[in-house]
C-alpha cells in the first residue's frame, strides 16, 4: 500500500461518508449511516488511517458547511480505531465481528461525544431524544450521565446497522480491494 494510494483511499472514505449520509436521507431511513466511509477506510487501511479519515471527514465538512461538526471528529476517529483494530484481528466478513463493533461503538461514541455535546449544547440535541434526556435528568440530577444514557439507543441502532452494512458491503467487494478486511475467519 503506497502513500499515494493511502491518500486517495482516505479521500474516498471521506466522500463515502458524505454519500452514505445523503443516500440514507434520500431513502428516508431513520438512521444516519454517515460513518460508513470511516468504517470502510478503517477496514481497508487499518485503524490509524481509518481514524484520520473520520477526523478529517468532520473537519472538512465543518470547514465547508457547518463548523459545529468539527469537534465531533473525535467521535468519528474513535469509530475508525475500533473498526480498524477489529478488522485487523478478525477480518470483517463474519457475523460476530460487526456485533462486537456495534456494541463497543454504541458505548464509546456517546462516551466521547457527550462531553462535547454537554459543553456546546448543554446536552440537548434539538431532536426527540431531548424528552428522554429531560426525564432522566430530572430523576437523576446528573447532567453528563443523563445525556450519555439518552444517546445510547440511537447510537446502538445506527452503529450496529452500519457495522452489519459494512460487513455485507465488504463481502461484495472483490478481494483485491479488501485490504485488511480480506482476512476472514479461517
Amino acid at each position, binding site marked *: 500500500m*503506497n502513500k499515494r494510494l493511502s491518500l486517495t483511499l482516505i479521500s474516498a472514505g471521506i466522500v463515502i461518508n458524505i454519500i452514505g449520509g445523503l443516500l440514507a436521507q434520500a431513502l428516508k431511513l431513520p438512521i444516519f449511516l454517515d460513518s460508513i466511509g470511516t468504517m470502510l477506510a478503517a477496514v481497508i487501511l487499518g485503524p490509524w488511517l481509518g481514524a484520520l479519515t473520520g477526523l478529517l471527514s468532520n473537519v472538512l465538512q465543518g470547514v465547508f458547511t457547518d463548523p459545529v461538526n468539527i469537534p465531533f471528529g473525535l467521535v468519528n476517529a474513535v469509530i475508525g480505531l475500533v473498526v480498524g483494530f477489529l478488522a485487523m484481528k478478525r477480518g470483517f466478513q463474519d457475523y460476530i465481528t460487526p456485533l462486537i463493533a456495534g456494541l463497543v461503538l454504541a458505548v464509546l461514541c456517546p462516551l466521547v461525544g457527550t462531553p462535547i455535546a454537554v459543553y456546546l449544547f448543554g446536552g440537548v440535541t434539538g431532536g426527540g431524544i431531548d424528552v428522554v434526556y429531560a426525564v432522566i435528568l430530572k430523576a437523576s440530577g446528573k447532567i453528563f450521565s443523563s445525556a450519555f444514557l439518552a444517546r445510547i439507543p440511537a447510537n446502538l441502532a445506527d452503529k450496529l446497522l452500519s457495522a452489519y452494512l459494512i460487513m455485507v458491503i465488504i463481502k*461484495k*467487494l*472483490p*478481494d*483485491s*480491494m479488501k485490504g485488511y478486511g480480506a482476512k476472514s475467519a479461517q
Partner: protein
Amino acid sequence: MDNILLKQSTGLSVTGLSLKYPGSDKQVLDDINFSLNMGEVCFITGANSSGKSSLLAALAGLIPSSIPGELTGKILLNNKVADELSASLCIQDSDIYLFEEVYREIAYPLLNASFSSEETADKVRVISELSGVKELLGRKMSTLSGGERQKVAIAAALACDKELILLDEPYEQFDPCSVKNILGSLKRYAHDNKRVLIITSKRYEYADGIADRLFNIENGRLTEIRNPVYSYPHKMRADALPKKTAQTGDEDSSLISFTNVTHKFSENSGISGINICFNKGEITGIMGPNGAGKTTLLKHCIGLLRPHEGSVLYSGKDIKDIPVNKLAFKTGMLFQNPDDQIFNERADIEIAWGLTIRGMNKKRAVEKAVNILDEFGMNQIVRMHPHSLSRSVRQVIALASVLVTEPDILILDEPTRTMDDRLIDVTMKMIKRYLKIDGAVVIISHDPSVIWNYTERCYLINNGEIAASGYTESIFKEPDALKSCGLDSHPFITGLL
C-alpha cells in the same frame, strides 16, 4: 512476427517484453518487439483485453511500480533504460481526473516539475490551445462533457512533457471533426518536438494520414500492419437481423410511441416535437451526434424523465402515472456501463437479481441465470466475482440480467462505446435468441456502423429534433440528412457513399 530489429541510437526500442499478472497464467504481453523513431506517430489497435492498455502501462513504468506484475524484457528510450521519468500516459477512462478545476488539472504536472506560476500559466496556455481546451480553462471538470474531459486529459498528459507520449483510446467520445483536428495537432506536436507518440484504439480508421507506423495487438502478441486498408465492414450482416416484416407504424403494432414529446432543460437543450414508433418485430436505430438528445429520449422511454409536452405511450396507453420500476416489466435496458449497476459478489446472483426483486423465488431465478450463462457458453463464470472478470464480461453479465427478465422491448444504449465487434456480434445473437416474437429492439448510438449493420429502420436526431426517419438503407443514402448531423465526415459514411 518478422520485425527486423534495427539497432537504433535514438528513439524507442522494445525488446522481448512479456508480462503476466500475479495469480494468473495468462500471458498478457507475449514477447513484444518493436522500435520507433523520435517524432514518429504510432497507432496500436486491438480488441478489449488484447493487452493494449497493459502495454502502455508497462511502457509508462506503472508496472511493476504501481500495478503488480511480472515484467520481463527491455524498454530503451534514446539508448537509456526507460523509467518512470520518460513517459506520460493518458489513461483510458477520462472520467477519472485529479482536480476539480480544469486549470489545475493541466497545471499540476508543471508545478510538480518546479516551474514558477508564471511559466506554468504560459505553458498551460500553449498546451490548451493545442488540445482545443483553451475556452475551458476557467471551468470545473464535473461540468464538462465527456469529450471535453477527454481533451483535458490529453492536455494534462502533454503537460508532463515527456519524450514518450502514450494515449490510451483518447478520442472515444469525440465527434468525427474533433478527432481529425486533435490528431492533426498531436502529429505536428510530436514531429516538431521530437516526441514518440503512441495512440491505441479499437479500430484504425483515423490513422489514415496520421500514423507513421501501424500495429495490431492480439492476445498479447504485436504484429505490424504494413499495408493498411482503411475501410469499415460494410456488408449488411443479414444473419444479425430477425427476418420479420417491417410494419409501417400503425397504432396496433407499436410497443412504444412518442407523440409530440418535448422536454426542455434550458433554451438550447432538450428534445422537442419528437414523434417516434418502436414496432413489434423490428430493430430500430436512433442515431445522432453527441449532445443531440439521445440520452434524454432514452430516459423518456423508461420514465426516468417525463415529457413537458406530449406523451409517451406503451401499446397505446399513456405511461405518465406508471413508476419506473413498473415500466421495467415491459422494457429492459442495457446501459453503457455495467459498473453502474453490478453489486453482487457472484455472477449468477447478479443476473438473478432482476428476477428476485420482482418476487421470483431465489432458487428458480438462479437456475434461469445459470441457464442463460450456459447458452452464452460462459458457465465457467457462474460463481465468480464480476469484478474479477474483464469489463466486457461484466457487460455480458449486465446483458444477461436484462434478457433473463424477458422484456417485450430491449433498448441498447451506445453498445459500441465499450464493446468491440466480436462482443457486439455475440450480443446481437443472444438478443435474437431471447427476444420474443413480438418484441422490439432499439439501438441508440453515435456510431453509424452499428446502426447500418443491425437496424432496419432508424431515426436521425439532431439538436433535440428528428432530422430524418425511415428505413436504414435509404437514410444512409441521404447525404443532406447525415450532413446536418455532422455525420458525413465519419469514416464509415465516407467509405459507404
